[in-house]
């Protein structure tokens, strides 16, 4: 008798363990079978056109966000108020690259949430080819494309084979870097906004004097050098006035990182560090730490992105706003000679959402996306995070929460240059670009810059040349593996003028 009971208990334990291991946890909808509409068909586009009426069965749609935590709060709150039967369960993923492994597991296991911010390591073409994405033609019909900034739904970016797969959030001008300053820190040492340096020489002179006047306690400048994407953006933007061709020369169709632009930029910041213009913690700091340095008055200036104004304006966890919008200002980052600087972009949008093809609540997701389409872009302006994908002139009622937004938007327009896109020459290049992404070196200008700043690299020529050679080898390998469908000439644009918006 005892043995039989033990055997039964053992089998129950094993069975429970197997059940727990096999269960899927992503979609928490309790009433998926009771939903009035069916899930997506094989093409991912057909769906029942009925929309749930208020008071219908409760539905939960899941959403992953790797952007600023507050990005979707307002629009979700408004949507849930209007449709109380639909809950949008938002999960904020770790920022600064910590989301990558989570996305990879979800893409591989086909366990994506209903809606998710684009994973940085997978292109829309890759995800469509894998059958992971639901098309959004019903949400963005072609006649509405004109409401959005140019190139938002371009083939290869927002659309694949003529079908829309992305919900654009931010303008493609998103990602510009600028310099934020702490007004009180400047004033404490006797400076005003008029004294803010505009060139590298001015910054060095200002920084040394500033550090001396503050008794060595406060430094001129800080930024998150350890955050790789930020360091890369900074190098690209600061190198542009010196070497306008940038890292990828569309005239030759080749990468080149061993340029005067990158070398001089890295040498300048190393000098700034050695001469105590740069805060010593910079070489050990991420972007989060950089905000702290500015807010606590340890630095006068902080390099940040166009989104940094929104971060600086957020209250702390107790709800206190110790650092108000009156306490900071924003100006262009000093460039070598005080002139213009820019980063290149290829079109599409700064950030966007996808919908999983496996969503069981397409009508509810569509309802939410339509609500977002009509209400989200205003909140982007109101939070001051960036510029929205929708043309700003079509959102006249939205007012940003801080006055500096006007300057930030202006700089975003000035600091971006449109490049050619290989997809215009050959749509099949999406697979080559995806393969190149896998073959490219596990190094970039941001990591080389950090190594140089930290003193690990004494010479820049060798690592930058290696990066160039390895990148071009990776591109060649990816093109060769395309079996003739894509040629090296597809990456060449003889009519491109470096430093100007591409008009071809």
């Amino acid at each position: 008798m005892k043995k039989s009971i033990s055997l039964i208990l053992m089998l129950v334990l094993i069975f429970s363990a197997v059940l727990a291991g096999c269960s899927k946890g992503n979609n928490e909808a309790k009433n998926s079978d009771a939903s009035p509409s069916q899930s997506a068909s094989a093409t991912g586009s057909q769906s029942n056109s009925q929309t749930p009426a208020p008071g219908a069965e409760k539905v939960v749609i899941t959403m992953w966000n790797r952007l600023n935590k507050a990005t979707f709060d307002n629009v979700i709150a408004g949507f849930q108020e209007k449709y109380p039967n639909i809950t949008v369960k938002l999960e904020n993923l770790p920022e600064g690259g910590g989301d990558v492994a989570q996305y990879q597991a979800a893409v591989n296991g086909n366990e994506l949430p209903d809606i998710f911010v684009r994973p940085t390591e997978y292109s829309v073409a890759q995800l469509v080819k894998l059958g992971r994405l639901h098309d959004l033609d019903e949400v963005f019909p072609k006649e509405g494309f004109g409401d959005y900034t140019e190139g938002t739904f371009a083939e290869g970016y927002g659309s694949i084979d003529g079908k829309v797969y992305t919900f654009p959030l931010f303008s493609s001008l998103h990602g510009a870097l600028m310099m934020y300053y702490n007004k009180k820190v400047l004033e404490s040492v006797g400076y005003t906004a008029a004294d803010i340096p505009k060139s590298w020489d001015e910054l060095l002179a200002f920084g040394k004097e500033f550090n001396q006047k503050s008794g060595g306690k406060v430094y001129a400048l800080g930024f998150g050098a350890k955050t790789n994407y930020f360091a890369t953006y900074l190098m690209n933007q600061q190198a542009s006035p010196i070497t306008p061709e940038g890292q990828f020369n569309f005239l030759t169709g080749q990468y080149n990182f061993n340029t005067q632009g990158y070398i001089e930029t890295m040498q300048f910041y190393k000098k700034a560090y050695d001469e105590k213009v740069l805060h010593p913690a910079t070489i050990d700091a991420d972007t989060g730490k950089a905000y702290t340095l500015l807010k606590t008055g340890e630095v006068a200036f902080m390099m940040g992105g166009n989104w940094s104004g929104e971060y600086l304006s957020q209250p702390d966890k107790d709800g206190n706003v110790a650092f108000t919008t009156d306490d900071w200002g924003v100006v262009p980052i000093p460039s070598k000679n005080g002139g213009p600087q820019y980063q290149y972009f290829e079109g599409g949008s700064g950030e966007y959402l996808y919908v999983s093809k496996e969503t069981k609540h397409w009508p509810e997701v569509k309802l939410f996306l339509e609500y977002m389409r009509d209400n989200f872009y205003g909140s982007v302006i109101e939070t001051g995070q960036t510029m929205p994908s929708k043309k700003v002139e079509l959102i006249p009622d939205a007012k940003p929460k801080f006055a500096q937004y006007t300057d930030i938007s202006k700089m975003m327009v000035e600091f971006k240059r449109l490049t050619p896109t290989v997809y215009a020459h050959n749509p099949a290049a999406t697979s080559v670009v995806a393969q190149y992404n896998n073959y490219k070196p596990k190094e970039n200008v941001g990591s080389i810059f950090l190594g140089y700043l930290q003193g690990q690299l004494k010479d820049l020529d060798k690592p930058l040349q290696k990066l160039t050679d390895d990148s071009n080898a990776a591109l060649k390998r990816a093109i060769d593996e395309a079996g003739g469908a894509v040629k090296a000439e597809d990456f060449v644009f003889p009519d491109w003028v470096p430093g100007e918006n591409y008009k071809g």
Partner: protein
Amino acid sequence: MQTGKPKKKLHQQLRRKYMWAYIFVLPQVLYFLLASAYPIVMSYVYSFYEWDGLGPLTRFVGFSNYNELLHDEMFWNSFYNAMIYGVSATIITVVSSFLLALVLNDVNMKGKTIYRTIYFLPVVTVSSIIGIMFNNIFGIQGFANQFLQSIGWIHEPIRFWLDPVLAMIMLILVGSWKHIGVVMIYWLAGLQMIQIDLYEAAKIDGANYWKMLMRITLPLLKPVAATILLLTVGSSLHVFDLVRTLTNGGPYHHTETIELFIYEYAFATKFGGVRVGYASAAGVYLGIFVLFVSLFLGWLGMKAGSSGSSKIGKEVSKS
């Protein structure tokens, strides 16, 4: 006379015992097959493909990944770093835990249980938490630098994580500290297996502490030492979570171990996409290396086991 029934009953009882044994072992066997054996086999398979982890395996490349690895500077850099860490952490862990065990095994030692608990605490703490904690404590603006500057010992912060040598030393020290507790327990178990009679007899013969240590303790601990060495080397060659959170391979790849190298290729990172095949080939190389090291240490252990007991036998017969 009926002779068949008792034999049949015994056979049935034995079968039932075996059945229960298999039932209890079954969950672990299943887990091993699913979580260990299957991934090991599949990693060998993946190593012969160029695969980004998405979709089916289509591009068979033979030994191309293995060949590419042999020419990859970063692979050899990570292998070198893993050896530096492995050897250093093993020496520090084994020696210091032995010394601690000697102290805690002393009959006159008070509060043994408390000390054992204190030394064992790092073992049960999650490695990644330890990494984050120490990374902050020894950062440029961390507690350690602030304290040292406040007492005037230093004027500029020490760049613990930005100097390649210091960063590796810190990694080795933290990694050793994490494992000293468990290795100490192994030593204690070995020490407590040695008969007290041998020490008493040696004392009567006028042996001091040092002679007893060299002539009795160490020789008899040889088999245990070989096992401890094998386990410690194995665990020190597999260090990922601590490296990831403490230094993340920095500064500039100077503490990047081979498991971190594999991770950078097996998972999409800030540097780009995935090459599961390439990462798997690196894993195969690591696995083969660890196998050879384990076989060598196992052989050493067998030799130590036979020589240790024979040496004591000779010592006893001399007296």
